């Protein structure tokens, strides 16, 4: 379980995260929505340790992770995929994953052996399979479609066997068809692996169809939380956010 209590982060005079208290149950799939500048990405950066909070606490399975290094937070089990797919363009999908698994096994500096290490094959193949890129394992990452690059990014996060997976706009910059393909893959992953998935998403159709539970951020605060039905009918959400944004998106 991931518990966030009274989390605060300010930049200059702006409170990007303002007294946020949220809980993500183990094995849940949650969407975080909110207008631009609502503090969604800041919230993710705090969870993954890219920034330290000004005050408040983040607990993963009861243990505080505030103040730990990015690497340590990753080891504790919070994995993250990026808004812009962060991959290795000149390596194939398979090479990427084999090299990532070597790094995870602390074998990345080995000079004596030949790449790939036999011990890395199963885990790499498993991660590739989880995001559905098995058929493209020999494709150069740079030649993958936008959606597949995003899935590869997610696969890289999966290498570290996270308990919690943070996905920052997994479908950003894609056409409608590819969006659905990627988000379906994310849901499938969540169903099969039983990991806690939290994702930021702008597309309301996707959010309402996929996420059993939704958190709405606005001006750094939690505006609402609940099921899609509850969020859809929440007057505060409609006023602050859905009214304008949803029309714009549609």
């Amino acid at each position, binding site marked *: 379980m991931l518990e966030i209590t009274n989390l605060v982060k300010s930049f200059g005079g702006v409170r990007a995260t303002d007294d946020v208290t949220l809980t993500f149950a183990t094995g849940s799939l949650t969407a975080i929505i909110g207008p631009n500048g609502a503090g969604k990405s800041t919230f993710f950066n705090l969870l993954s340790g890219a920034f330290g909070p000004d005050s408040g606490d983040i607990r993963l399975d009861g243990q505080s992770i505030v103040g730990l290094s990015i690497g340590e937070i990753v080891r504790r089990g919070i994995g993250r995929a990026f808004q812009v797919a962060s991959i290795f363009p000149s390596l194939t999908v398979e090479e990427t994953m084999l090299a*990532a698994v070597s*790094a995870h096994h602390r*074998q990345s500096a080995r*000079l004596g052996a030949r790449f790939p290490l036999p011990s890395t094959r199963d885990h790499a193949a498993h991660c590739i399979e989880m995001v559905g890129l098995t058929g493209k394992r020999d494709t150069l990452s740079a030649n993958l479609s936008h959606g597949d690059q995003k899935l590869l990014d997610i696969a890289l996060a999966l290498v570290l066997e996270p308990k919690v997976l943070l996905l920052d706009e997994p479908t950003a910059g894609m056409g409608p068809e590819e969006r659905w393909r990627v988000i379906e893959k994310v849901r499938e992953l969540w169903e099969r692996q039983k990991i806690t998935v939290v994702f930021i998403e702008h597309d309301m159709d996707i959010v309402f169809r996929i996420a059993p539970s939704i958190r709405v951020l606005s001006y750094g605060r939690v505006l609402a939380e609940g099921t899609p039905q509850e969020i859809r009918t929440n007057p505060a959400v409609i006023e602050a956010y859905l009214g304008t944004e949803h029309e714009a998106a549609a």
Partner: protein
Amino acid sequence: MKSPALRDALFGLVAFLVLAALPLLTTSSALIDFVIRCAALGLFATSLNLLVGYGGMVSFGHGLFFGMGAYSFGIIMQRTGMPIPLAILLTMAVAAMVALAVGAICVRLKEIYFAFVTLAFQMLVHSMIIAWVPVTGGDQGLRGGIPRPSFLGINLADQKQLYLFSAALLVLGLLAMRHIVSSPFGYTLRMVRDNPTRAGFLGVDVYRTRLTAFVLAGVFASLGGVVMSLFVSGAYPEFAFWTMSGEAVFIVMLGGTVAFLGPMVGTVLLLLLNDFVTRVAEHHGLVLGAVILLFALGLRKGLLDFVMDWREARRTRAQAGSAGKDKMAAADKMERVAT
């Protein structure tokens, strides 16, 4: 199943046998000399490509380690007369130490700063060679010849045996570097080149990876320097001058940075051009410059990379044709960086 390591070793063995058979086919000492120079420069340029092609670190001071190799080996042989194999190992150890010190400072720096600080270190060493006359012979170079005592029945004073020895060092050095780029470390280096931030997230120590590559490249550059000093039986300040580094950068550009043997192809090309053009043209620099421009602006890549991409494109087209999938057109095939 054929292991890639075995395939590389076989390839190396065949290459060595071909080189070894060459003196049987010709009595031309010019050809023999040509191959020895190829060995020296080829080791040097391939070691630079560990940094440029595989590490994404363009060093303009790599000649430091070539010069260091030639001088260390020459001085060790002149002053101690220890067995040649031992002197070579000691030279490589010296180069490793210097590379560790220089690299510890340089590899933290980004692109252009890395290039210029490596160049600065090279000029520092060059100045030391010029100034430290009692040890290095100053601008006259290390003269008086380098003693080449026989070891294990090998007499390097004999040109033919020196030729075989150089060819063996070349093949062994290339095999060792080939192994490095095919190791888990080699792929970590590619990750760091492509996306250091993400590599860091995955638990890779970016700084250590770059430093290790820098040291290894320095060690193999010094081996090239050893071959050169054996060939000319001396060492000269030009070996450590910035033009030496420039030559290696040229070679890498000519031959290619992606294919492992690109720098070897570049070495042969540059030496051929050099020898041929100096014979027929007065301003040979002008001709060489034009050729480099042709490669940089015309092919936009080194010769071997160009050939490999062309073959790959043809294969892809053939596949696409048989499968009836035109979408897989070679055109959208991205150029690979070092494989």
